[in-house]
């Protein structure tokens, strides 16, 4: 594997220009600018006009993600997002960065032309950027599941868990998440913590999620989950938990915290404090975005009902849990874990396939969603306290 070395020592497996809008009012201009380079320029952004410390930090992390080589910031001009701080943080990493304020650039047409010129020049420069050797231990890999059904927890999720075990053994950092989908697993999960204090933190994160969802009145459970045979949130949780594999749990992080070394980490995605701003993650891409903000180079996405999404910035590897769905949506799927159900493959074989595909993806091979042009992105309001000292034992 080869990657692009960044000034903080991390290495990227892609080298894209991020076109970052800072309020929905600048979204159209950002989208039109990125059309100049559909594969190399990726649109990310925050729609809100009111300030939010979480969104600010997420955008700072994403604009300095190892897969990002240059950043065009697109501001309307009057929004509350701190564009000066974002520009300074990106510039401090040595990346080319430009802030385009639509109100100061003559409006839509002129901003699009100016932005396209800048992006095209960066794309040309990034194409000549040198690469360095990269090892598995340089990788951070996330995992999510979406559109789950009764097959996810017996095929795709445990196979992703086997791939995670192989990645952790080779020195990578792996992140699993959605504490709202670990309700009912808190006891067995806490037993895997590397210290007793971390075990307490893991249990507390799931208890927080249970309280949060109880206040909202709905669990992290969509109607399609029930169509696929899942009945309760704790049943869905046990299936989702299988993605974590068997490795000891090295730490608990929150969105934007970067794993300090190799190992397995749980991401606590449920906001702290009283319930504000609605559901923790309104759809699967919000989870993928949080994985990327914590440095994920690539995300494993296990789906039973058949999600088709990809992501801006970091490739998504889609693992079909259900063989019937795979037959219908095979063009969107990278791995057929449903083969486990008809006996044509074992869990270990699919786990190895996923591991091999992570390495191929990191070496530059496009995933199905990348090849189809998927670049979904969503970021909404949240509020977090920093993690406590027990969350990352030395």
């Amino acid at each position, binding site marked *: 594997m080869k990657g692009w070395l960044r000034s903080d020592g991390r290495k990227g497996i892609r080298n894209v220009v991020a076109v970052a809008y800072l309020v929905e009012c600048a979204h159209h201009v950002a989208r039109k600018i990125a059309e100049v380079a559909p594969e190399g320029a990726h649109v990310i952004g925050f729609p809100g006009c009111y300030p939010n410390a979480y969104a600010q930090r997420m955008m700072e992390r994403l604009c300095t993600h190892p897969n990002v080589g240059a950043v065009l910031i697109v501001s309307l001009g009057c929004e509350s997002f701190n564009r000066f701080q974002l520009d300074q943080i990106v510039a401090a990493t040595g990346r080319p960065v430009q802030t385009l304020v639509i109100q100061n650039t003559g409006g839509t047409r002129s901003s699009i032309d100016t932005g396209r010129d800048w992006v095209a020049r960066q794309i040309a420069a990034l194409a000549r950027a040198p690469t360095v050797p990269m090892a598995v231990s340089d990788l951070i890999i996330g995992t999510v599941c979406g559109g789950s059904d009764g097959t996810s927890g017996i095929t795709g999720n445990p196979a992703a868990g086997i791939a995670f075990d192989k990645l952790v053994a080779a020195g990578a950092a792996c992140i699993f998440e959605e504490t709202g989908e670990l309700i009912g697993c808190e006891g067995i999960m806490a037993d895997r913590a590397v210290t007793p204090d971390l075990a307490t933190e893991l249990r507390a994160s799931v208890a927080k999620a249970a309280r949060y969802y109880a206040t909202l009145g709905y669990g992290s459970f969509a109607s399609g989950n029930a*169509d696929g045979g899942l*009945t309760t949130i704790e049943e869905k949780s*046990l299936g989702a938990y299988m993605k974590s594999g068997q490795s000891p749990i090295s730490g608990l992080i929150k969105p934007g915290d970067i794993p300090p070394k190799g190992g397995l980490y749980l991401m606590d995605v449920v906001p702290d404090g009283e319930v504000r701003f609605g559901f923790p993650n309104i759809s699967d891409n919000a989870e993928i975005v949080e994985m990327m903000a914590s440095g994920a180079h690539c995300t494993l996405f296990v789906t039973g009902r058949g999600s088709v999404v990809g992501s801006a910035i970091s490739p998504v590897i889609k693992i079909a849990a259900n063989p019937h769905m795979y037959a219908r949506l095979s063009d969107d799927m990278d791995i057929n874990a449903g083969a486990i159900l008809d006996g044509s493959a074992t869990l270990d074989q699919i786990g190895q396939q996923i591991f091999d595909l992570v390495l191929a993806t990191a070496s530059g091979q496009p995933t199905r969603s990348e090849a189809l042009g998927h670049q979904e992105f969503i970021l909404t309001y949240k509020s977090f306290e920093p993690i406590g000292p027990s969350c990352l034992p030395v």
Partner: protein
Amino acid sequence: MLTDPRLLLLSPRDSVFVLRGQIEAGETVWVAGIAVAFPQALGLGHKIARLAVPQDGQVIKYGAPIGRATHPIAPGDHVHLHNLRSDYTPTYAIEAKP
């Protein structure tokens, strides 16, 4: 005890099997030594009771509780929203379907 190979047991103490192949409407299927008639088709991932569970008793899958029975469950029953509820948050499912 004879069980159809489409019924998968995930953990030795589980009260349910998981379907790894579709059951067609009108089929009769062996479930832990009992011949059970299924008037409606059941898709992959659905659960069929292996053991009897009393009302309010825990249903076990993956060796862990996944909720409680809202009605007595007999071996061979389809286990789903009509007879199983969460111990945490209630399950939402769209009821009106074309």
